[in-house]
């Protein structure tokens, strides 16, 4: 039996499983064989628990015979190593959590499990989701499937590379400042960051609690809609989730854009943007116009402050969230400490990598005595202005189109010694997290060098349907 894993979608696999063309065990076995031959070069997965995956696949096959149905029944998915799957490792790609076994399922995982998903393995990432290249993993460097000399983006680089490299049908990532969308753009897959409060964060290891969201990374917009529909909704374990009805997101996937107003923010078409990226996005705008969309100019005047605000808010929240890693309750403890203070200091020094240390120091600094008002409070106020920009823009358009990133994927090692340059990768993506709105990256035709480019589609809060609609229409038009 042969599978085209480079493009096999959830929708196709589900149809084949339903009609009995193959079983989940066939599908998962073939995918495991493929990971075995390819992942030593790609390094998308930190671990793959083959026995566990096959056991779940056989259970899904039995459930189907017993009459169970479900959008993900028997479908294998890869999970970013930041999300707890009961009984599986969850290292957050950090040395400090080496050997940790998750004692419970995250809510998003429990919902996927109820829908019949098969958990394949743990995808690589930047340590604690801090980075834009997955080079900050304590364990391995993931390669870009389009060009092995280049990074897959980050922090959900393993999840993006697994999908684009045909080592998963779909994966979950998390996005705090672009960590789903930027790797999706770099690797050439779909990546959706939902509205803040759309998907429960319970069981997601917290980086910046007011910005983090879990989202799907898939081959198609339809698959992203399917996975989002399974995960979304209120959860009593995460009081920031909102009690907003979860629609059938696949019903929103129309192929024309008649009556849709798409905003182009001039602040996202900046000098220094890569020429290929600019021309692909301009082409995408024309494709959308051709599908019936009305293109309008909008302005998001506080965009230039977003990176500054993001690196204050995200690091401040991270410095407090990561205080829990102290060698007391879980993870690795440094040897030879004489008292608890000594133990905390040594454990954290040995357990965290350099980018995590950098962000903890910065976050602690902006919260420390005398600087709170000048940095943290002020950043929160500018955050209000950034939200206001989007609220005003969505009065005159239904969705906004931008490039996901200013450039295609860069080379491994190119930015690793320059934190500032690395941080600028988030320039077009961090705004959606600050505003709490949904945003998705959809692949454009690649550059002359064959490198993927991403079109970012942003919508108003809880406007996932319009984001998916625009993404699907564009994707179908480009595919023809």
């Amino acid at each position: 039996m042969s599978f085209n894993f480079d493009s096999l979608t959830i929708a196709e696999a589900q149809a084949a499983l339903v009609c009995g063309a193959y079983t989940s065990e066939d599908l998962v076995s073939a995918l495991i064989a493929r990971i075995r031959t390819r992942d030593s070069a790609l390094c998308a997965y930190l671990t793959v628990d083959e026995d566990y995956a096959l056991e779940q696949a056989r259970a899904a096959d039995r459930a189907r015979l017993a009459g169970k149905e479900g959008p993900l029944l028997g479908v294998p998915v890869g999970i970013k190593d930041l999300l707890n799957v009961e009984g599986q490792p969850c290292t957050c790609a950090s040395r400090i959590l080496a050997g940790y076994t998750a004692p419970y399922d995250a809510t998003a995982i429990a919902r996927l499990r109820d829908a019949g998903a098969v958990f394949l393995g743990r995808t690589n990432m930047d340590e604690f989701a801090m980075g834009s290249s997955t080079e900050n993993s304590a364990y391995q460097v993931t390669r870009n499937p389009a060009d092995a000399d280049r990074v897959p983006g980050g922090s959900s680089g393993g999840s993006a590379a697994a999908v684009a490299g045909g080592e998963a049908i779909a994966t979950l990532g998390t996005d705090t400042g672009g960590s789903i969308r930027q790797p999706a753009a770099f690797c050439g897959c779909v990546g959706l960051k939902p509205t803040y409060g759309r998907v429960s964060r319970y069981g997601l290891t917290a980086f910046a609690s007011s910005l983090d969201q879990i989202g799907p990374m898939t081959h198609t917009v339809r698959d992203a809609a399917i996975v989002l529909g399974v995960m979304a909704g209120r959860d009593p374990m995460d009081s920031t989730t909102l009690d907003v009805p979860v629609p059938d997101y696949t019903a929103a996937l129309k192929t024309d854009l008649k009556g849709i107003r798409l905003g182009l923010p001039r602040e996202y078409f900046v000098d220094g943007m890569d020429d290929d990226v600019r021309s692909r996005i301009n082409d995408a705008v024309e494709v959308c116009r051709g599908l019936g969309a009305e293109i309008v100019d909008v302005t998001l005047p506080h965009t230039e402050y977003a990176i500054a605000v993001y690196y204050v808010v995200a690091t401040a929240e991270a410095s407090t969230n990561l205080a829990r890693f102290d060698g007391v309750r879980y993870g690795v403890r440094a040897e030879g400490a004489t008292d608890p203070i000594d133990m905390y200091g040594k454990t954290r020094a040995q357990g965290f990598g350099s980018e995590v240390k950098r962000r903890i120091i910065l976050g602690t600094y902006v919260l420390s005595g005398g600087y709170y008002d000048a940095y943290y409070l002020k950043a929160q106020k500018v955050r209000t202005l950034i939200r206001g920009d989007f609220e005003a823009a969505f009065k005159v358009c239904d969705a906004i189109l931008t490039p996901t990133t200013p450039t295609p994927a860069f080379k491994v090692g190119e930015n690793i010694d320059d934190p500032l340059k690395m941080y600028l990768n988030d320039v077009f993506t961090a705004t959606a997290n600050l505003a709490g709105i949904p945003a998705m990256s959809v692949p454009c035709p690649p550059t002359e060098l064959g490198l993927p480019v991403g079109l970012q589609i942003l919508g108003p809060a809880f406007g996932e349907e319009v984001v998916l609609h625009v993404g699907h229409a564009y994707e179908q038009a480009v595919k023809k």
Partner: protein
Amino acid sequence: MCETKQPDVAKIDVAYVANLVRLRLDEDEIRALQPQMEAIVDLIKKIDELDVSAVEPTSHASAVTNVFREDKARDGIDRDRVLANAPAEVDGQFSVPKILE
């Protein structure tokens, strides 16, 4: 409120901040972090261009304030499974180095 205070970037005391957050850094790490912190704080100071004295802060993008549930006991995660991840355990409890002599 001291909105007008302009922190002096040159005075970031990395060792002091590291101690606040219980992170032991060696001399090489502190030396490497010093210019990086200054460059990042320089970037962050861009927000000083804006007058936000009349703007309310956003601490959270979601529209909820207080969320209540019934005050009813419910089961947590089983103790043995939690302790299975502990670096050191004695008699069903986390064990740490001695605090008092």
